[in-house]
Every structure is written in structure tokens, then in C-alpha cells.
């Protein structure tokens, strides 16, 4: 084992032992301290015992030095067929307008993105998009249409037209409909319709009134929207309790500048949301003109709440001890569990692509009010690279393939990066004033790797304590 031996690995030290994450095998294996110490600096010759251990690992296929040689996403060679056959979700931006003006909204003017306008989608454009969807989804097991805004309920009439059209055109398929709303425009008449068409509804709710109204205020005023939204939602719950339980959930955007405890207490105790599914995210600042400010209290409370989730997962706390707001805060580790609990691979392929990007225009397709096509609703609508076509001309495959193969802008770095498979950034992180920037992408790498490192460690600790991803359904 000479000096040149450079296994493609990442070392992890957790309280329960020392681990090697083997990039080729996509597997984490516990090793004795002496082996770990040798692999850490690899300057001195290993002693006989370590050498024997390493030989054994190599015989079992670990510690290979292989790296991907060519950056190419595996779907590249049949991307055209994926586009043609596998679209699963169409998101229609029915309006760019909103009756609220939330500070952290991607369209508030605080982001490198478009701002709210009065534009609405025409029914003609919506019809073309629905026809496109139907003719590009034959192999897809999903068939969902989402309505997006602004506030989609401002265009309730258009939504109804779209549903009637999709139902008539999608004969033989079950279409699922959904939208996200600020809840202020929900009315009784709309409830009946939503129930009849079994809409999944995601209501934005940031916490108790004083928290919610901090950001979610009616446009052109200083009046918060909590009262109106909660009155409407309570009425819906009263009128259709079963539908509410099954189809209505909440999305909480957390502002890290403030403590989180008040939000947790609210979701724990407030009756009208009890038992509901609550998703939560910290304000997304990827395209923001100013980055988030994290207060110390927030960080302390947030980490504590997340730690409680881990304790719940290993049976040290009960579900009831965990705030509903935090219960979903386990996705990252669950993904890690799925990653490690699936079949090991033998080695990295010659041609490959890091994790992160979706297949643009395939699982999801976002159509803006003007019929322009984007991979999803989260990307900047003003970005030249993000726009992958128009509903009149279809997807520009060349542009889409560039986004699919985003690794190519940082090929060298990625192919040598231990977090290759678990990287979670897409082109959105590299987008800079309408172009793909290698430098901007690389600025994300450190935090990306730190996050991967933390998630593997959390997962390994849980695994040591008896956690199993497949039993955690």
C-alpha cells in the first residue's frame, strides 16, 4: 500500500465509533480506530493489523480509487423519450397577482425574480398546457394538475374551466388537483367545488396571529391576514370535517430571525389545526437579494426541536412530545436511510452525474401565465436559463439537457467530491443573472457537504440506536 493509494472515501467520527463512507460502494462501514487513524492521514506505513484489515476491506470491494470519468446524466441518452412519455405533474400559474404582499414571497420584489403583476393565464394557454400534459404522460403513474399563483383563488373561474377541460380530455385517467393558497379567498361556494373535485389544498399558515401577521399582510395595507384566513379555514373544517382531515394541510414558512417556540406551541395546541398535516420550511433565500438572518434563540430552539425528533425516532420520546411542525423534519435523514438501506453498488460508473437535479420537464412542468415552460415553480421566472421552452413550441431539449447535466460546469470538482451521490443542489443554485455560473455553484459546496456530513452522521447515530428506515413508514 504505497503513498499513492487514494481510496475515494469520506471519514466520519460519531460518538458510537468511526466510520468510512465509501463513495464507490455508496456504503458506510464501521472501522477500528487504528484503521480510521491510518486512513485519516495515510502518511505512515500501516502496521500489520491495519494492513490486514485494509486488505480485507479491499477484497470485499471497498476502498476503490475510482472516480466518474465523464460527467453525463444517465437520462441524457433517452431524455427525449422521458419528455415524451413520463410527465407526472403540470403546474399552471393561473395568475401572477396576489391579494397579500408577504415580504418573503418570491414575487415580493425582495428576490431576483419577477414581481406580482395583474397578469392571468388565458384559457387558451391553459388548454394547450393540459393537452400537452395528456400527450406526454402515457407512462407516468402520476397525473396531477396544480394551480399556482400569486394567489390561485383570484382566478377561481379559470381553475373551474381548467378542471372541466382536463376532466373531459383526460378520459380514462384519474386527475388529481391541488393548489396552495393563503386561505383568505376561501368561501362556502368554493368549498363545495373543492370537495366535489377532491382538491388537495395546502394553506399557508405561519403560526399564531402575531407571527402570521408579521409577514402575511393584505396588499396595500398593514392589515394582517390571519383572522380572515383562520375564519375561512375553520368554516371549511366545520362543514366538511372528513374532507378537511384528508385533503387539507398547512405550510408554515419559518422566519429564522424570530424564536420558533411560539409556532411550535401554536401548532401543538390550537384546535382548528389539530391533527392536520403541517409542512414547514425556513424562508428560502436561494434567490433572495438579502440572505436570511438567523437569531441565536431561533438556532437554539430549532436544533433542540430537531433533536427531539431524533429522540422520537429511536423511541426515547413519544409522538405526542413532538411538535406537529417538526414531525416532517426528518425527510433528509429518511432519504439518507433509503440511500444506505438500498442495495450497495459495486463501484461508480465511468459516466455519471451527481445527485441534485430533477429531470427538467419530466416529473414536473411549470407553465407561467404567458405559456413559458420551467422545470418547477421554485426557479426564477426572469432567468433566461431557467426557461426551457414555450407551450406553443414545446421543450427546448438542448436547454433542458444543459440543466440536467449541470455537473458539467463543475465537472472536475464534482467528480472528486465525496458527496457526489448525495449532493442536493440543482441549477437554481448556479443561476446568476440569467447565466449558469461555476463560481456561484461552488460557493454552495461547502454547506452542501456539511449538510450531507451531518445527515449521514445523524443517520448513523440513529442506526446505532436501533433505527431502521424501512420500519419507519
Amino acid at each position, binding site marked *: 500500500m504505497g503513498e499513492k493509494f487514494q481510496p475515494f472515501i469520506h471519514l466520519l467520527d460519531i460518538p458510537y465509533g468511526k466510520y468510512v463512507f465509501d463513495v464507490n460502494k455508496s456504503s458506510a462501514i464501521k472501522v477500528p480506530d487504528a484503521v480510521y487513524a491510518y486512513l485519516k492521514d495515510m502518511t505512515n506505513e500501516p502496521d500489520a493489523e491495519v494492513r490486514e484489515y485494509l486488505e480485507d476491506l479491499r477484497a470485499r470491494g471497498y476502498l476503490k480509487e475510482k472516480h466518474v470519468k465523464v460527467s453525463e446524466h444517465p437520462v441524457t441518452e433517452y431524455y427525449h423519450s422521458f419528455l415524451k412519455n413520463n410527465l407526472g405533474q403540470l403546474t399552471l400559474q393561473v395568475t401572477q397577482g396576489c391579494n397579500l404582499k408577504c415580504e418573503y414571497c418570491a414575487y415580493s420584489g425582495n428576490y431576483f425574480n419577477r414581481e406580482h403583476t395583474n397578469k392571468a393565464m388565458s384559457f387558451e394557454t391553459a388548454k394547450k398546457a393540459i393537452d400537452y400534459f395528456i400527450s406526454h404522460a402515457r407512462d407516468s403513474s402520476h397525473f396531477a394538475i396544480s394551480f399556482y399563483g400569486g394567489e390561485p383563488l383570484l382566478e377561481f373561474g379559470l381553475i373551474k374551466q381548467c378542471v372541466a377541460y382536463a376532466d373531459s380530455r383526460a*378520459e380514462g385517467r384519474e386527475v388529481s388537483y391541488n393548489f396552495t393558497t393563503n386561505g383568505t379567498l376561501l368561501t362556502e361556494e368554493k368549498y363545495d367545488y373543492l370537495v366535489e373535485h377532491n382538491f388537495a389544498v395546502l394553506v399557508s399558515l405561519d403560526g399564531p396571529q402575531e407571527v402570521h401577521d408579521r409577514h402575511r399582510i393584505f396588499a396595500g395595507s398593514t392589515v394582517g391576514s390571519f383572522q380572515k384566513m383562520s375564519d375561512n379555514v375553520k368554516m371549511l373544517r366545520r362543514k366538511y370535517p372528513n374532507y378537511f382531515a384528508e385533503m387539507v394541510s398547512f405550510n408554515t414558512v419559518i422566519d429564522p430571525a424570530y424564536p420558533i417556540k411560539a409556532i411550535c406551541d401554536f401548532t401543538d395546541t390550537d384546535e382548528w389545526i389539530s391533527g392536520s398535516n403541517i409542512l414547514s420550511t425556513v424562508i428560502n433565500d436561494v434567490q433572495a437579494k438579502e440572505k436570511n438572518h438567523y437569531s441565536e434563540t431561533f438556532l437554539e430552539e430549532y436544533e433542540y426541536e430537531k433533536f427531539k425528533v431524533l429522540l422520537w425516532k429511536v423511541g426515547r420520546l413519544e409522538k405526542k412530545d413532538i411538535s406537529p411542525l417538526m414531525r416532517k423534519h426528518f425527510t433528509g435523514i429518511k432519504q439518507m436511510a433509503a440511500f444506505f438501506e438500498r442495495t450497495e453498488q459495486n463501484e461508480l460508473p465511468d459516466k455519471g452525474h451527481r445527485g441534485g437535479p430533477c429531470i427538467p420537464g419530466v416529473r414536473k412542468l411549470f407553465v407561467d401565465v404567458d405559456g413559458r415552460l420551467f422545470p418547477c415553480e421554485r426557479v426564477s421566472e426572469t432567468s433566461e436559463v431557467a426557461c426551457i421552452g414555450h407551450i406553443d413550441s414545446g421543450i427546448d431539449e438542448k436547454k433542458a439537457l444543459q440543466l440536467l447535466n449541470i455537473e458539467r460546469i463543475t465537472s472536475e470538482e464534482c467528480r472528486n467530491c465525496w458527496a457526489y451521490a448525495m449532493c442536493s443542489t440543482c441549477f437554481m443554485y448556479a443561476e446568476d443573472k440569467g447565466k449558469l455560473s461555476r463560481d456561484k455553484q461552488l460557493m454552495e459546496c461547502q454547506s452542501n457537504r456539511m449538510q450531507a456530513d451531518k445527515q449521514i452522521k445523524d443517520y448513523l447515530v440513529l442506526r446505532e440506536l436501533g433505527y431502521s428506515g424501512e420500519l419507519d413508514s
Partner: protein
Amino acid sequence: MEKLMVYPYSKAYEPYVSNAEVLGEYMVTALVSPRGWGYEGDIIVDGQGNRYMVSADFTEKLDDCTCVWFVADDRRKIPKELLREKLQEAVKHGKKILYTRYGDDYCEEMKQLIPTELYIEKKMKLETVLNLSKDRTYNIDTPIIVVAGLGQDTDKLAVQFILMQKLRGKGYTAILISSRQDGDWKGVYGMPEFVFDHSVGETEKIIKLNHYVKQIEISEKPDVLLVGVPGAVLPLDGINHNEFGILAYEISFAVPCDAAVICMPYQSLFNGDYSQLAEDMQKRFGFSVAGIHMAAVVQDAQEFYAERKLSYVSIEQKVVDRKVSEICDDSVWNIRSERGAEKAVSQLIDILSD
């Protein structure tokens, strides 16, 4: 000649169109698919170069046919009400009905809607040529080619049809017991219902299937039998278990296998080395793998990692052709191409003659 409409048409029924000879006295005149399935406007070409355009207009196409074949595709659900509506419409227009959606739990309810004079039972009569003992299996002396798949949607039926036709073209009497329950056609027996019936015990199933094949052997006196294995032969993981290949296991006791063709989805990393798979097939089922057919579908890896569910996406034949010629191995084929089919059949004949 009955003029046949296939409804609800999907890719799973394309082999019946491109190998129209198996339909015997039936001639496809209309392919109708629910509009939401996305097949409308597709052109399917049969062996003679005739072109069929998939329509979504059931009513209009009814005029072109004398018989409607209601087919089933496990991958595509059709709402019961829509099916009932179309069935009633066909009956109202006096069309004969072939109904092979045996897997639906409302199959009998639908069949009740078909007047006896319109209902066609698509079953060949097998004379009871022997008084077979109920508690033993019998030797099958005819050479048998087994066609099995590593996943759903891997062209199994097309491969069975193509091999059968090619063998017949070379002067052999080839009879197929197909992997599907689509009724019996010219030289094709459907997989019998009891094979899928959970109330039939495993031993009984094996013996009955053996007897079924034995009877076919005796009454048809074929030179070669092809047997299609329903479902997939191997579990992928605990979630995508493919029923653990149980049917393949049972079939392997019911009929011997002289050569097996394994259909697999396209894999860009596949280098032609299937020795591990061949060993597995031999050990588990006694299938001696003669070769691999690569189908123009790929596993949707993102869907698999996101939802742990296996699904397949169709890709272009040219991607498979490219791969097969790159691998350049006499036992890795794209049987859907003329060249691949010829190669596979001559290879199989060599094996069976040995």
C-alpha cells in the same frame, strides 16, 4: 373475417397488431384508447406494412368493426364506469364481444351485460385425450423455450409472438402457451385461469398446468413449445417483490425448460455479461438461459429513489439497437429488430437441436 376493435388499446396490445397472423380469422380494424392515456394519433404498423392510427373515438370506430375485444393492461387502470359505458354501447350496436379482463374484480358483473348471442368465448377446445392422474406430473417430450422477464413491460409477449412466427417460418410447428390471459388464438393458448387463482393450492396448480401443457402437446403435436412466464421472475427488493417470482417457480416444476430467453429492460451500464443472472436462473428455476432480449424501456430511477416504486418508461428502439451492437454478443438481442429475431431464432434452434 371478423373486424376487430381493440379497446382500451395500450402499448401492451401492440404485439397483436404487429403479429396479426396470431389473430387468425380476426382482422384488426380499429385501435381505440381512452383519450387520457395519450396514445391517440399513434401509428402502429403490422407485419404487412399496414398502418393503424390509434383513435380516441369509440363511437366512430364502432362502425368499422364487427367485434370489440375488451382487453386488460395491468399498468393502466380504466374507470369501471367508462368501461361499462363502452361495453353497453358496443352491445347496443350488436357488436360481438370478446372480454378478457379476467383480473378485474368486477369481471363477472361486466360479462353479465353481454347477451349470450354476442359473447365470444375465446377458448380452444382441448379434447381430453388422456385420463391423466390427478396426483402426478407427466414428462413433456417436446422441446420447450421459456420466455421470462426481469420486469413488467419488457416485451415478453412480443418476444413470444416473434419467436413463434420465426420458428413457423422455418417450417417448425411452434405452439405458444402465452404469459397472458388474453384468450386462445391461432397457435396461441392463453395462460389458464387457475394459474392466477389464489384459491388453488400450489401443488394442484403445478400438476394442472403440467396436464394442460401435456394435453396441448398431445393434441397439437408441435415440434417446439414456447411458454411465457407471467409477471417478473425475480424480486428487486422487499417493496418491488414481483411476487417473488413464485409463478416462475411453479411453472418450472410444471414444464421442463430446454432454453430460456430472458427479457430485461434497457440498462446503459449493461456490458453483456449476464453470467450471474444465468447462474441464478439455473439454480432457482432450472432455466438454461440461451440469451437476453433487451427491451426498449428503462427503469425510472428518480421515481424509484423518491418513492421506492418501480416503474418503466418507454424509450426509442434505436437506443437499444445501438447498445446491442455495441455489446456485440451472439446471445444479447433486440428481438424486435429483424436481425435480432433471426439471430435469436437460429441460436435457439442450434441449442434445441443439440
